[in-house]
């Protein structure tokens, strides 16, 4: 940042590189800044998220609020450069005479415009923050919805027939948990230590949901372990084919 005096007015010309902070929200400040060259962003921060308010370009002035209000106050927003910029800084004392000479009616009207700007700024920040929060809620909600369909525990009898195999062995037992992705089954007609099946084997399964709806599907074994009953295997199964009607019934069943 280089600065140099420029004229009788004794304003300072500050040079900023892109991305530098010019004003920090909450700081005590009384100077007015005029953008001679470049562009800056006015922003505020809420919960560590930067909320952009507006961009200010060449010929425009910022910070005039404090000057016109003539109160020692804190900066209502932060400012940083969006590109390399040159900014003229006016100290209020420089404008003191001009301000004193300001026709009272114009001063009064200016103060009102200022108050309105402060109000609109507050509203804009509120609305922008709310818009951001709404976006977050929508994204969270989709995840919440997916979780609700996660899984339910039960004990419903099933019969299964191996498909895609010449053996076409039978399977029977209880479905103990179910989700939109698959089922967990406690097998009763075969023993864990004498299990003819392996992961990847596919079955056609029939069962009846607790709500009375018939359900049919194809599923393949993705995991084999010991079940609750001693010696009984437990198959983790993933759906390979689920008819639309069964999918719908399952969906309704899984809703909390």
């Amino acid at each position, binding site marked *: 940042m280089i600065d140099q005096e420029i004229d009788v007015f004794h304003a300072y010309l500050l040079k900023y590189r892109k991305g530098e902070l010019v004003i920090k929200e909450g700081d005590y400040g009384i100077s007015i800044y005029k953008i001679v060259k470049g562009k800056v962003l006015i922003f505020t921060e809420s919960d560590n998220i930067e909320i952009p308010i507006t961009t200010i370009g060449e010929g425009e002035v910022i910070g005039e609020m404090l000057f016109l209000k003539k109160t020692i106050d804190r900066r209502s927003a932060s400012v940083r450069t969006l590109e390399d910029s040159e900014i003229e800084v006016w100290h209020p004392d420089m404008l003191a005479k001009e301000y004193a000479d300001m026709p009272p*009616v114009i001063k009064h009207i200016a103060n009102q415009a200022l108050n309105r700007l402060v109000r609109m700024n507050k509203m804009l920040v509120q609305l922008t923050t709310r818009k951001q929060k709404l976006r977050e809620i929508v994204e969270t909600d989709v995840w919440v919805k997916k979780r609700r369909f996660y899984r339910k525990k039960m004990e419903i009898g099933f019969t299964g027939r191996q498909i895609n195999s010449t053996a076409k062995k039978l399977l029977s037992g209880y479905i103990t948990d179910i989700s939109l992705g698959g089922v967990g089954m406690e097998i009763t007609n075969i023993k864990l230590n004498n299990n003819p099946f392996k992961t990847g084997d596919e079955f056609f399964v029939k069962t009846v949901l607790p709500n009375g709806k018939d359900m049919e599907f194809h599923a393949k074994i993705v995991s084999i372990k010991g079940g609750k009953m001693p010696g009984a295997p437990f198959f983790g199964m993933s759906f390979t084919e689920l008819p639309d009607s069964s999918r719908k019934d399952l969906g309704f069943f899984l809703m909390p």
Partner: protein
Amino acid sequence: MPVDEFTYAFIAKEENYSDNDYIIKEGTSGDWVYIILKGKVKVKKMTAKGLITVDTLREGEIFGEMILWQAGRGARTASVVADGPVKVGVLDTEALLKEYEKLSPRLKGLMKSLIKRLSETTQKAVTIAVETN
């Protein structure tokens, strides 16, 4: 707020409006600056989703003053509608402009910047309000 004494001197005439009367219509060209003497008004802007209320102004507050800072008499940036019965003072625009001319170029620049910012900020707020509703 009470009517500022300096502003009072610039009142050319008084006008009365009934509830929902348009005192200023957005988009039309305007010549007058107003001050509220009694009652309140709503500032409204037209959006893709209809008319929305942007602000409420009360006794002592001034509206329509945007024309003072603009080189030509541009179009009104918002409508101002009476909220209940309202009495306004119509200000002498020519006299106000003469006062405005007394400002230094620097202060004039300051005022123009302020007004431009007010207009843009209001528009931005309106756009987001419409988007999120």
